[in-house]
Protein backbone atom coordinates (compact mmCIF):
# COMPACT_ATOMS: atom_id res chain seq x y z
CA UNK A 1 0.00 0.00 0.00
CA UNK A 2 1.28 3.43 -0.84
CA UNK A 3 0.34 6.63 0.84
CA UNK A 4 1.48 9.84 -0.67
CA UNK A 5 2.74 12.67 1.45
CA UNK A 6 2.11 15.16 -1.30
CA UNK A 7 -0.39 17.62 0.02
CA UNK A 8 0.39 17.14 3.70
CA UNK A 9 1.81 20.62 3.90
CA UNK A 10 -0.85 21.87 1.52
CA UNK A 11 -3.55 20.65 3.90
CA UNK A 12 -2.43 23.44 6.15
CA UNK A 13 -1.32 21.14 8.94
CA UNK A 14 1.13 23.15 10.94
CA UNK A 15 3.14 20.43 12.58
CA UNK A 16 6.29 21.29 14.49
CA UNK A 17 9.25 19.01 13.91
CA UNK A 18 8.59 17.32 17.24
CA UNK A 19 4.93 16.68 16.52
CA UNK A 20 5.81 15.32 13.11
CA UNK A 21 7.14 12.31 15.03
CA UNK A 22 3.56 11.18 15.51
CA UNK A 23 3.30 10.36 11.81
CA UNK A 24 3.82 6.68 10.99
CA UNK A 25 6.58 7.21 8.46
CA UNK A 26 6.73 3.51 7.56
CA UNK A 27 3.47 4.17 5.69
CA UNK A 28 4.63 7.27 3.86
CA UNK A 29 6.07 6.90 0.37
CA UNK A 30 6.93 9.97 -1.69
CA UNK A 31 5.54 10.22 -5.19
CA UNK A 32 7.38 7.93 -7.58
CA UNK A 33 9.38 6.26 -4.78
CA UNK A 34 9.60 2.46 -4.48
CA UNK A 35 10.01 2.36 -0.70
CA UNK A 36 8.74 4.40 2.28
CA UNK A 37 10.72 6.94 4.27
CA UNK A 38 11.12 4.63 7.28
CA UNK A 39 11.09 0.95 8.15
CA UNK A 40 11.68 -1.32 11.11
CA UNK A 41 14.92 -3.31 10.85
CA UNK A 42 15.62 -6.84 12.16
CA UNK A 43 16.57 -5.44 15.58
CA UNK A 44 13.20 -3.71 15.87
CA UNK A 45 14.76 -0.25 15.42
CA UNK A 46 12.87 2.29 13.38
CA UNK A 47 15.20 3.49 10.62
CA UNK A 48 14.12 6.96 9.45
CA UNK A 49 15.23 9.23 6.66
CA UNK A 50 16.39 12.70 7.70
CA UNK A 51 13.32 13.92 5.79
CA UNK A 52 11.07 12.65 8.59
CA UNK A 53 12.82 14.88 11.15
CA UNK A 54 12.44 18.11 9.23
CA UNK A 55 9.65 20.69 9.34
CA UNK A 56 6.80 20.51 6.82
CA UNK A 57 8.19 23.65 5.17
CA UNK A 58 11.56 22.04 4.50
CA UNK A 59 9.86 18.81 3.41
CA UNK A 60 7.66 20.68 0.98
CA UNK A 61 10.73 22.23 -0.67
CA UNK A 62 12.08 18.77 -1.42
CA UNK A 63 8.80 17.24 -2.53
CA UNK A 64 8.23 19.73 -5.30
CA UNK A 65 10.99 19.59 -7.91
CA UNK A 66 10.15 23.15 -8.93
CA UNK A 67 10.59 24.40 -5.36
CA UNK A 68 13.71 22.31 -4.74
CA UNK A 69 16.60 24.81 -4.84
CA UNK A 70 19.04 22.11 -6.00
CA UNK A 71 17.00 20.67 -8.81
CA UNK A 72 18.59 22.81 -11.50
CA UNK A 73 21.67 20.66 -11.06
CA UNK A 74 19.79 17.68 -12.43
CA UNK A 75 19.15 19.58 -15.67
CA UNK A 76 22.67 20.98 -15.72
CA UNK A 77 24.07 17.51 -15.06
CA UNK A 78 22.21 16.10 -18.02
CA UNK A 79 24.01 18.59 -20.24
CA UNK A 80 27.40 17.87 -18.64
CA UNK A 81 26.78 14.13 -19.09
CA UNK A 82 26.81 14.43 -22.86
CA UNK A 83 29.43 17.17 -23.19
CA UNK A 84 32.83 15.88 -24.37
CA UNK A 85 35.77 16.82 -22.16
CA UNK A 86 39.46 15.98 -22.01
CA UNK A 87 42.06 14.79 -24.52
CA UNK A 88 40.01 11.77 -25.66
CA UNK A 89 37.16 14.01 -26.77
CA UNK A 90 34.66 11.76 -25.02
CA UNK A 91 31.58 12.46 -22.95
CA UNK A 92 30.13 10.25 -20.23
CA UNK A 93 27.30 9.46 -22.62
CA UNK A 94 29.71 8.11 -25.27
CA UNK A 95 30.53 5.17 -23.02
CA UNK A 96 27.56 4.98 -20.66
CA UNK A 97 24.70 5.90 -22.97
CA UNK A 98 21.45 6.90 -21.33
CA UNK A 99 22.13 7.57 -17.65
CA UNK A 100 18.55 6.63 -16.76
CA UNK A 101 19.52 3.07 -17.72
CA UNK A 102 23.26 2.76 -17.13
CA UNK A 103 23.21 4.65 -13.80
CA UNK A 104 19.80 3.42 -12.61
CA UNK A 105 21.10 1.75 -9.42
CA UNK A 106 24.61 3.21 -9.09
CA UNK A 107 23.36 5.75 -6.54
CA UNK A 108 22.17 2.95 -4.25
CA UNK A 109 25.47 1.04 -4.36
CA UNK A 110 28.21 3.54 -3.53
CA UNK A 111 30.63 3.60 -1.73
CA UNK A 112 31.72 0.41 -3.48
CA UNK A 113 34.94 -1.57 -3.71
CA UNK A 114 36.73 -1.12 -7.04
CA UNK A 115 37.30 -4.57 -8.51
CA UNK A 116 40.58 -3.45 -10.14
CA UNK A 117 42.37 -1.79 -7.25
CA UNK A 118 40.53 -3.21 -4.25
CA UNK A 119 40.02 0.33 -2.96
CA UNK A 120 36.78 1.62 -1.52
CA UNK A 121 35.44 4.33 -3.84
CA UNK A 122 32.88 6.99 -3.15
CA UNK A 123 30.85 8.05 -6.20
CA UNK A 124 33.11 11.11 -6.48
CA UNK A 125 36.23 8.92 -6.66
CA UNK A 126 34.62 6.75 -9.34
CA UNK A 127 33.64 9.72 -11.48
CA UNK A 128 37.14 11.16 -11.22
CA UNK A 129 38.58 7.79 -12.20
CA UNK A 130 36.55 7.96 -15.41
CA UNK A 131 37.63 11.53 -16.02
CA UNK A 132 41.34 10.92 -15.55
CA UNK A 133 41.65 7.36 -16.92
CA UNK A 134 38.92 7.21 -19.57
CA UNK A 135 38.54 10.79 -20.77
CA UNK A 136 41.96 12.37 -20.33
CA UNK A 137 40.21 15.12 -18.38
CA UNK A 138 41.23 16.74 -15.12
CA UNK A 139 39.81 15.37 -11.89
CA UNK A 140 37.08 17.53 -10.40
CA UNK A 141 37.88 19.00 -7.00
CA UNK A 142 35.72 17.21 -4.41
CA UNK A 143 33.36 20.04 -3.51
CA UNK A 144 33.51 21.88 -6.87
CA UNK A 145 30.45 22.95 -8.84
CA UNK A 146 31.26 20.42 -11.56
CA UNK A 147 31.52 17.52 -9.13
CA UNK A 148 28.41 18.48 -7.16
CA UNK A 149 26.37 18.77 -10.33
CA UNK A 150 27.61 15.44 -11.70
CA UNK A 151 27.09 13.53 -8.43
CA UNK A 152 23.60 15.02 -8.04
CA UNK A 153 22.78 14.00 -11.59
CA UNK A 154 24.15 10.45 -11.32
CA UNK A 155 22.64 9.72 -7.91
CA UNK A 156 19.33 11.28 -8.89
CA UNK A 157 18.94 8.46 -11.44
CA UNK A 158 18.40 6.17 -8.42
CA UNK A 159 15.90 8.44 -6.67
CA UNK A 160 13.21 6.42 -4.90
CA UNK A 161 15.17 3.17 -4.97
CA UNK A 162 16.43 1.62 -1.72
CA UNK A 163 20.03 2.13 -0.61
CA UNK A 164 21.78 -1.17 -1.13
CA UNK A 165 25.51 -0.99 -0.37
CA UNK A 166 27.57 -4.17 -0.13
CA UNK A 167 29.36 -4.62 3.19
CA UNK A 168 30.45 -8.25 2.80
CA UNK A 169 33.34 -9.81 0.88
CA UNK A 170 35.98 -7.26 -0.06
CA UNK A 171 33.92 -4.47 1.55
CA UNK A 172 33.89 -6.15 4.98
CA UNK A 173 37.14 -4.67 6.34
CA UNK A 174 36.08 -1.17 5.22
CA UNK A 175 32.72 -1.61 6.89
CA UNK A 176 34.41 -2.64 10.15
CA UNK A 177 36.68 0.39 9.98
CA UNK A 178 33.71 2.68 9.42
CA UNK A 179 31.80 1.15 12.27
CA UNK A 180 34.74 1.59 14.65
CA UNK A 181 35.16 5.24 13.62
CA UNK A 182 31.43 5.86 14.01
CA UNK A 183 31.55 4.66 17.58
CA UNK A 184 34.86 6.25 18.54
CA UNK A 185 34.92 9.33 20.74
CA UNK A 186 36.77 12.16 19.04
CA UNK A 187 37.42 15.88 19.44
CA UNK A 188 37.71 18.09 22.48
CA UNK A 189 34.03 17.39 23.23
CA UNK A 190 34.94 13.69 23.20
CA UNK A 191 31.79 12.42 21.46
CA UNK A 192 31.20 9.72 18.90
CA UNK A 193 28.78 10.04 15.98
CA UNK A 194 26.63 7.48 17.72
CA UNK A 195 26.12 9.66 20.78
CA UNK A 196 24.04 12.16 18.83
CA UNK A 197 22.68 10.09 15.96
CA UNK A 198 21.87 6.81 17.76
CA UNK A 199 21.39 7.70 21.42
CA UNK A 200 19.53 11.02 21.09
CA UNK A 201 17.86 11.36 17.70
CA UNK A 202 14.40 12.88 18.03
CA UNK A 203 15.64 15.35 20.68
CA UNK A 204 16.63 18.96 20.44
CA UNK A 205 20.28 19.76 21.02
CA UNK A 206 19.92 23.49 21.59
CA UNK A 207 18.19 24.71 18.39
CA UNK A 208 18.91 21.58 16.33
CA UNK A 209 16.50 18.68 16.10
CA UNK A 210 18.69 15.56 15.94
CA UNK A 211 18.09 13.00 13.20
CA UNK A 212 19.71 9.62 12.71
CA UNK A 213 22.35 11.22 10.47
CA UNK A 214 21.32 9.18 7.42
CA UNK A 215 22.98 9.66 4.04
CA UNK A 216 20.22 8.74 1.60
CA UNK A 217 19.66 12.36 0.54
CA UNK A 218 23.21 13.27 -0.47
CA UNK A 219 24.39 15.38 -2.15
CA UNK A 220 21.92 17.40 -0.11
CA UNK A 221 20.79 21.00 -0.38
CA UNK A 222 21.26 22.53 3.05
CA UNK A 223 19.55 25.82 3.84
CA UNK A 224 22.39 26.75 6.19
CA UNK A 225 24.92 26.28 3.37
CA UNK A 226 22.67 27.88 0.78
CA UNK A 227 23.80 25.17 -1.62
CA UNK A 228 24.29 21.49 -2.18
CA UNK A 229 27.06 19.68 -0.33
CA UNK A 230 28.59 16.22 -0.26
CA UNK A 231 28.29 13.81 2.64
CA UNK A 232 31.99 14.38 3.32
CA UNK A 233 31.25 18.07 3.84
CA UNK A 234 28.48 17.19 6.28
CA UNK A 235 30.70 14.80 8.25
CA UNK A 236 33.38 17.49 8.41
CA UNK A 237 30.77 19.87 9.81
CA UNK A 238 29.85 17.45 12.59
CA UNK A 239 33.53 16.85 13.34
CA UNK A 240 34.05 20.59 13.63
CA UNK A 241 31.12 20.93 16.01
CA UNK A 242 32.70 18.47 18.40
CA UNK A 243 36.01 20.29 17.99
CA UNK A 244 37.65 17.40 16.22
CA UNK A 245 40.30 17.39 13.49
CA UNK A 246 38.28 17.13 10.27
CA UNK A 247 39.15 14.28 7.93
CA UNK A 248 40.04 15.60 4.46
CA UNK A 249 37.55 15.48 1.57
CA UNK A 250 37.79 12.12 -0.17
CA UNK A 251 39.87 10.66 2.66
CA UNK A 252 39.76 7.02 3.60
CA UNK A 253 38.21 7.95 6.98
CA UNK A 254 35.32 9.85 5.45
CA UNK A 255 34.74 7.13 2.86
CA UNK A 256 34.59 4.25 5.35
CA UNK A 257 32.29 6.37 7.54
CA UNK A 258 30.14 6.99 4.47
CA UNK A 259 29.93 3.24 3.85
CA UNK A 260 28.95 2.53 7.43
CA UNK A 261 26.31 5.26 7.43
CA UNK A 262 24.86 4.02 4.14
CA UNK A 263 24.56 0.53 5.59
CA UNK A 264 22.80 1.83 8.72
CA UNK A 265 20.22 3.28 6.38
CA UNK A 266 20.15 0.39 3.94
CA UNK A 267 16.64 0.21 2.49
CA UNK A 268 15.88 3.92 2.80
CA UNK A 269 15.06 5.56 -0.52
CA UNK A 270 17.68 7.64 -2.31
CA UNK A 271 16.31 11.22 -2.21
CA UNK A 272 18.97 13.10 -4.15
CA UNK A 273 18.81 16.05 -4.18
CA UNK A 274 17.28 16.13 -0.67
CA UNK A 275 16.59 19.38 1.18
CA UNK A 276 17.59 19.81 4.82
CA UNK A 277 17.84 22.80 7.14
Amino acid at each position, binding site marked *: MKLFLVGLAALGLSLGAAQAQDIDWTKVTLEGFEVPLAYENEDGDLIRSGFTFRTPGTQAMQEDDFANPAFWRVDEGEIAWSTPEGSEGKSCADCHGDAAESMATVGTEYPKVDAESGELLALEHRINKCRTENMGAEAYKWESQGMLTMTVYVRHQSRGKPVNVAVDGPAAPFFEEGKALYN*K*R*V*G*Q*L*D*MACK*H*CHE*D*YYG*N*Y*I*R*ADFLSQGQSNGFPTYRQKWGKVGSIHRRIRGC*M*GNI*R*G*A*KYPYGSHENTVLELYIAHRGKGLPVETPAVRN
Partner: protein
Amino acid sequence: MKTLITALVVATTFAVSASAQDMAYVVNDDDYTIEKSLTGVPGDAGAGQAAFVGRKKGNCLACHAVEQLKDSQLFHGEVGPDLSDVGNSYSAEELRLRIVDYKVINDDVIMPAFFRSTGLSNVGKKFKDKTILSAQEVEDIIAYLLTLKS
Protein backbone atom coordinates in the same frame (compact mmCIF):
# COMPACT_ATOMS: atom_id res chain seq x y z
CA MET B 1 40.24 6.59 28.46
CA LYS B 2 38.84 3.27 29.70
CA THR B 3 41.97 2.64 31.75
CA LEU B 4 41.74 6.05 33.35
CA ILE B 5 38.18 5.35 34.40
CA THR B 6 38.96 1.88 35.70
CA ALA B 7 41.86 3.28 37.63
CA LEU B 8 39.61 5.88 39.15
CA VAL B 9 37.00 3.39 40.17
CA VAL B 10 39.50 0.95 41.64
CA ALA B 11 41.33 3.48 43.78
CA THR B 12 39.55 4.96 46.77
CA THR B 13 41.04 8.35 46.20
CA PHE B 14 43.15 9.13 43.21
CA ALA B 15 45.08 12.17 42.16
CA VAL B 16 44.77 13.08 38.50
CA SER B 17 46.77 15.58 36.57
CA ALA B 18 43.94 17.38 34.88
CA SER B 19 45.06 19.97 32.38
CA ALA B 20 47.93 21.57 30.60
CA GLN B 21 48.30 23.85 33.61
CA ASP B 22 48.66 20.71 35.69
CA MET B 23 45.74 21.40 37.94
CA ALA B 24 45.53 18.37 40.18
CA TYR B 25 42.29 17.24 41.74
CA VAL B 26 41.18 14.27 43.77
CA VAL B 27 38.15 12.17 42.95
CA ASN B 28 36.36 10.35 45.75
CA ASP B 29 34.95 7.43 43.85
CA ASP B 30 33.02 6.05 46.83
CA ASP B 31 30.59 8.99 46.74
CA TYR B 32 31.44 10.52 43.34
CA THR B 33 32.66 13.89 44.49
CA ILE B 34 35.61 16.22 44.14
CA GLU B 35 35.84 17.83 47.51
CA LYS B 36 38.37 20.61 47.06
CA SER B 37 37.73 23.72 44.99
CA LEU B 38 39.83 23.68 41.82
CA THR B 39 41.07 27.21 42.50
CA GLY B 40 40.44 28.12 46.13
CA VAL B 41 38.64 31.23 44.84
CA PRO B 42 34.88 31.19 45.55
CA GLY B 43 32.73 30.84 42.43
CA ASP B 44 30.78 33.79 41.03
CA ALA B 45 27.21 32.78 40.13
CA GLY B 46 26.77 35.63 37.61
CA ALA B 47 29.90 34.68 35.69
CA GLY B 48 28.76 31.07 36.07
CA GLN B 49 25.45 31.76 34.34
CA ALA B 50 27.30 33.36 31.42
CA ALA B 51 29.64 30.38 31.11
CA PHE B 52 26.69 27.98 31.40
CA VAL B 53 24.85 29.66 28.54
CA GLY B 54 27.79 30.64 26.29
CA ARG B 55 28.07 28.55 23.16
CA LYS B 56 31.86 28.85 23.21
CA LYS B 57 32.02 28.08 26.94
CA GLY B 58 29.95 25.39 28.70
CA ASN B 59 27.06 25.52 26.22
CA CYS B 60 25.26 23.51 28.90
CA LEU B 61 21.93 24.74 27.53
CA ALA B 62 22.59 22.69 24.38
CA CYS B 63 21.56 19.61 26.34
CA HIS B 64 19.86 20.88 29.50
CA ALA B 65 16.76 22.99 30.06
CA VAL B 66 16.56 25.51 32.91
CA GLU B 67 13.16 26.99 33.77
CA GLN B 68 14.79 30.10 35.28
CA LEU B 69 16.38 30.91 31.87
CA LYS B 70 13.23 30.41 29.76
CA ASP B 71 12.64 34.16 29.49
CA SER B 72 16.17 35.15 28.49
CA GLN B 73 17.21 32.16 26.37
CA LEU B 74 15.30 30.79 23.38
CA PHE B 75 16.67 27.32 22.82
CA HIS B 76 16.96 24.73 25.58
CA GLY B 77 18.15 21.20 24.86
CA GLU B 78 16.41 17.93 25.73
CA VAL B 79 19.36 15.55 25.77
CA GLY B 80 20.17 15.72 29.50
CA PRO B 81 18.00 16.16 32.62
CA ASP B 82 16.27 19.47 33.41
CA LEU B 83 18.50 21.38 35.83
CA SER B 84 15.91 23.80 37.26
CA ASP B 85 16.14 22.19 40.72
CA VAL B 86 19.72 20.94 40.59
CA GLY B 87 20.73 23.15 43.53
CA ASN B 88 18.48 21.08 45.77
CA SER B 89 19.66 17.74 44.39
CA TYR B 90 23.43 18.03 44.46
CA SER B 91 26.18 19.46 46.64
CA ALA B 92 29.04 21.60 45.29
CA GLU B 93 31.35 18.60 45.64
CA GLU B 94 29.05 16.37 43.61
CA LEU B 95 28.56 19.01 40.93
CA ARG B 96 32.31 19.52 40.66
CA LEU B 97 32.94 15.92 39.62
CA ARG B 98 30.01 15.92 37.21
CA ILE B 99 31.32 18.99 35.41
CA VAL B 100 35.00 18.03 35.55
CA ASP B 101 34.45 14.53 34.15
CA TYR B 102 31.05 12.83 34.13
CA LYS B 103 32.61 9.78 32.50
CA VAL B 104 33.94 8.73 35.89
CA ILE B 105 30.29 7.98 36.74
CA ASN B 106 29.00 6.82 33.35
CA ASP B 107 31.54 5.91 30.70
CA ASP B 108 28.99 6.02 27.84
CA VAL B 109 27.67 9.50 28.66
CA ILE B 110 27.36 12.11 25.91
CA MET B 111 28.19 14.96 28.31
CA PRO B 112 31.74 16.22 27.74
CA ALA B 113 34.37 16.26 30.47
CA PHE B 114 34.75 20.00 30.85
CA PHE B 115 38.01 19.92 32.75
CA ARG B 116 40.08 17.17 31.21
CA SER B 117 42.45 17.48 28.26
CA THR B 118 44.02 14.05 28.36
CA GLY B 119 42.77 10.77 26.93
CA LEU B 120 41.16 12.51 23.91
CA SER B 121 41.74 11.67 20.26
CA ASN B 122 41.58 13.59 17.02
CA VAL B 123 41.25 16.94 18.72
CA GLY B 124 41.14 19.99 16.41
CA LYS B 125 44.37 22.02 16.36
CA LYS B 126 42.87 25.05 18.08
CA PHE B 127 41.70 22.94 21.02
CA LYS B 128 44.66 20.60 21.53
CA ASP B 129 45.78 20.14 25.12
CA LYS B 130 43.17 22.59 26.35
CA THR B 131 40.28 21.95 28.70
CA ILE B 132 36.84 23.19 27.57
CA LEU B 133 36.44 25.35 30.68
CA SER B 134 39.03 26.94 32.93
CA ALA B 135 39.22 25.90 36.57
CA GLN B 136 37.58 29.16 37.65
CA GLU B 137 34.77 28.77 35.10
CA VAL B 138 34.01 25.35 36.61
CA GLU B 139 33.83 26.94 40.07
CA ASP B 140 31.64 29.77 38.75
CA ILE B 141 29.21 27.31 37.13
CA ILE B 142 28.99 25.33 40.37
CA ALA B 143 28.07 28.56 42.20
CA TYR B 144 25.41 29.25 39.57
CA LEU B 145 23.96 25.72 39.69
CA LEU B 146 23.63 25.96 43.49
CA THR B 147 21.25 28.92 42.98
CA LEU B 148 18.90 26.79 40.84
CA LYS B 149 16.09 25.73 43.17
CA SER B 150 12.50 25.43 42.08
